């Protein structure tokens, strides 16, 4: 009989914190830089106490200057450190676009492998927290167009630990997106031991036969909850939590579609040009004749942002009931 390895129940935010802590303990080349990560211990208290333990040389409070937070991390990475750069909110990442897309993602390619850029850029994203226009956005679609950049969107504490470890180990730059609504909402058992989850590997969170639902982030949880409700109605939905949007686990999606013959993609980022568009195109190219119904995308609306006022935020976000309704309609199609 296998002995259960020791584990702890923790929230998503605790998982980020404990994984970062372990990384700093394990490797003195690891440094954290960002706004308010030192004395304040990050706005979500993720790095609280780190500066006392690891010192201000490794836990670096930067000026409010996102382009150089990433740019300096690129230089550190090229010179042998393992920087973990933090953008305080994903909404603040735009000034760093050049350094992420033009520099970090192309370092290896443009030097033909002479230099690499092993770094992680962590940032909290997502809505449902009354974050208004500038503390709620999803940014994955702005970056997933970029070859050379990996994008991870974990949804559970265990996945956060395994994927953050994988991101820190990765020899190339990884954008690590943490849905802040899940920070204290989601709790689960996390093994104490060191482990990694391969970037680009999806997780089938519920098996089913009548419909494939692909989601990630906060909506990975809500879509699973909706699919479970449908079980009571004897509807069988397979739910895939992508966990990474680039590289994307195309085999997991295609294998599932070949089984269920129907595909629904649910994401919080707006629909136009979103991750769902790429999945739809991929399935249309690879498995069109497997489909018994048109592919559907349930995404947040194409407006500049969710509003601050509660009705505006609620109108923007997708409820679990709406997800269930969409799943029902598709199964019955």
């Amino acid at each position, binding site marked *: 009989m296998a002995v259960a390895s020791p584990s702890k129940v923790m929230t998503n935010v605790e998982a980020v914190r404990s994984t970062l802590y372990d990384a700093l303990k394990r490797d003195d080349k690891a440094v954290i830089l960002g706004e308010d990560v030192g004395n304040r211990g990050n706005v979500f208290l993720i790095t609280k106490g780190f500066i006392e333990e690891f010192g201000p040389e490794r836990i670096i409070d930067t000026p409010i200057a996102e*382009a*150089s937070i990433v740019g300096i991390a690129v*230089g550190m990475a090229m*010179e042998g450190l393992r920087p973990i750069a933090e953008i305080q909110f994903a909404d603040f990442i735009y000034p760093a676009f050049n350094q992420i897309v033009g*520099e970090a993602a192309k*370092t290896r390619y443009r030097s*033909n492998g002479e230099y690499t850029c092993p770094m992680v850029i962590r940032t909290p994203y997502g809505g449902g927290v009354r974050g208004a226009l500038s503390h709620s956005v999803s940014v994955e679609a702005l970056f997933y167009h970029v070859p050379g950049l990996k994008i991870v969107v974990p949804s559970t504490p265990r996945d956060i630990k395994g994927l953050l470890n994988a991101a820190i180990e990765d020899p*190339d730059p990884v954008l690590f997106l943490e849905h802040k609504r899940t920070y204290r909402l989601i709790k689960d058992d996390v093994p104490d031991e060191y482990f990694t989850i391969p970037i680009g590997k999806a997780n089938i969170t519920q098996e089913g036969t009548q419909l494939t639902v692909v989601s990630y982030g906060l909506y990975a949880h809500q879509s699973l909850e909706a699919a479970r409700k449908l079980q009571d109605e004897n509807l069988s939905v397979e739910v895939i939590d992508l966990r990474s949007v680039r590289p994307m686990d*195309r085999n997991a999606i295609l294998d599932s579609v070949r089984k269920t013959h129907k595909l629904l993609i649910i994401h919080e980022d707006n629909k136009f040009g979103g991750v769902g568009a790429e999945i739809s195109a991929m399935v249309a190219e690879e498995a069109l004749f497997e489909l018994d119904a048109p592919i559907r995308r349930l995404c947040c609306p194409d407006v500049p942002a969710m509003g601050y006022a509660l009705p505006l935020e609620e109108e923007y976000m997708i409820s679990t009931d709406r997800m269930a309704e969409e799943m029902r309609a598709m199964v019955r199609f």
Partner: protein
Amino acid sequence: MYAPRVVTHFERFGLSDEQLRGMLHTMLMQRTLENRGFQLNRQGKIPFASASEGHEAVQAGAAMAFERGRDILVPYYRDLGLDLGIGLTPYEVLLSLFARAADHSGGRQFPHHYASKKLGRFTISSIIAAQTAHAVGAAYAIKLREERGRAVLTTFGDGATSEGEWHEAVNFAAIHKLPVVLLCENNEWAISTPQSKQMAVRDIYKKAAGYGIPGALVDGFDPIACYGAVRAAMQRARSGDGPTLVEAKCYRFLSHTTDDDDRTYRTREEVEERRKDDPVPKFERFLLENAILSSADLEDLRAQVLAEANDATDRAELMPYPLPSDLYAQVHAGPWEPWQ
């Protein structure tokens, strides 16, 4: 026979005669290879070349202040003389001009975007001032590891100082007293935009005061003075005293690149006037007058440079292009998959 004049005393910052001749060699090679790039472009052999004529003195001087095998160079794309001065060979330059497979970037990048860990030469893009933050990050790594005696030399033009990223990087270097030298090669032109339209000040080095770091001004047409200024700043950085902003005032004699035509934005009279101060013949005269070089030596040196450049051109031209399949290499570690 050339008869030397009476040797005048000059501040040589400890440079030997051999080092002075070495700087001239770098300057002549830089000019020859830049001209070669323009020639090859006009012959239809290469699609593009850029120009650094007028930057020879500051680059030869700065390169002499760089310690090979210890320091890190994070230059910009108009730094051929710096690259040659720290050990890049003419053959590597021609591989880059011809975009051959054996080029540092595998034929991917524009000319003069080298990358060599052996030389301590970082990879760069063509994006203005993006490299300043990388230099500062590398300097942070040096400081964190307490590697006293190492420093980063990073360069940029006057145009780069307009970028927000430049400001952010200099500010961070100043806060942490990082071992980095910020060398501005002010050639007065950001392609077609004169300095007067880039900033309301004449002296870029004075911006240092706004960051709480020292600024130094040097004649960018005087390689010895540039060596002295950059060496002093590098020594300061290496001993843990923090960054320095050095401004070397020089001039760009040619168009920005082979795709530019500077007649559209500045007069020939202006360029001719500035040519009178051309740092290459000026340094030749200086070495002759001080009997560090004879005219025969100079003739030999020129012939040697031309022979090296010709040989490099012939060898590099014969080298193969990258294969079409090389397009897919080095996107990231491991084999390329379209879904990565």
